[in-house]
């Protein structure tokens, strides 16, 4: 990561995917947000939590708060999926979705502790650990 990205102020923007996403059942979002506030709060400009950043109302919020001067850490679904689902929000805000402005943190299939540690790494400018390979999806009935 370049120096410019590391020196930028940082904000944490959670997307909880409605709060009942099957891939996030191991996460206590309120405990996570409070722990980030308590233990990492002095490193962040602000944090926000939205139930669906990828929907129109989430994108409206992104348009209001995304800024060229801030690097956004987005704990949300898997990083690759965030590239697709948050793309419009960044575009509407006129902020490039590049390393200087955006660090995705995958929460899919993770626990509260793991996500906290990933946010901590992101704030420190450290690379995210590689996600384990996704298990193969179940076969539909009738296929062996």
């Amino acid at each position, binding site marked *: 990561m370049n120096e410019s990205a590391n020196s930028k102020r940082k904000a944490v923007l959670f997307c909880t995917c*409605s709060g*009942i996403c099957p891939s996030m059942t191991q996460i206590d979002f309120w405990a996570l947000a409070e722990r980030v506030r308590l233990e990492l709060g002095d490193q962040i400009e602000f944090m926000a939590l939205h139930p669906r950043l990828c929907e129109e109302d989430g994108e409206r919020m992104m348009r209001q708060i995304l800024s060229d001067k801030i690097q956004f850490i987005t704990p949300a*679904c898997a990083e690759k*999926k965030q590239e*697709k*689902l948050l793309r419009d929000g960044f575009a509407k805000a006129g902020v490039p979705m590049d390393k200087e402005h955006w660090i995705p943190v995958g929460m899919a299939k993770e626990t509260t502790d793991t996500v906290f540690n990933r946010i901590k790494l992101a704030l420190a400018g450290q690379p995210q650990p590689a996600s384990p390979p996704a298990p193969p999806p*179940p076969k*539909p009935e009738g296929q062996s």
Partner: protein
Amino acid sequence: MKARAYLGIPRDLIPWSPRIDSDRCIGCGECLNTCPNNVFVLNEAENKMTVANPTNCVVLCDKCAGFCPEEAIEFPNKDEFKKVLQRLLQELREKAGSEASSPQPK
């Protein structure tokens, strides 16, 4: 495991999930790459996507449809579906109200 619920409504009572037009589906997997919840699986024999886990679909989420290059994924109309949710919520509140007001067994 505790049953999942959306706004207090058990998820399996909420009829929100995608439908795939198999005549249009080309089995490209874009939907699979968009949805994190194993809603879709590829029927390899026919090279078509199928909806294997409809209740894993996040209620009112239809993002996969926007990424389908063949426009083969359909969802219920969102505005209409919000009315369905309001009705389910009303039923839930009425049920809770009647249970609260009924005499408790001694």
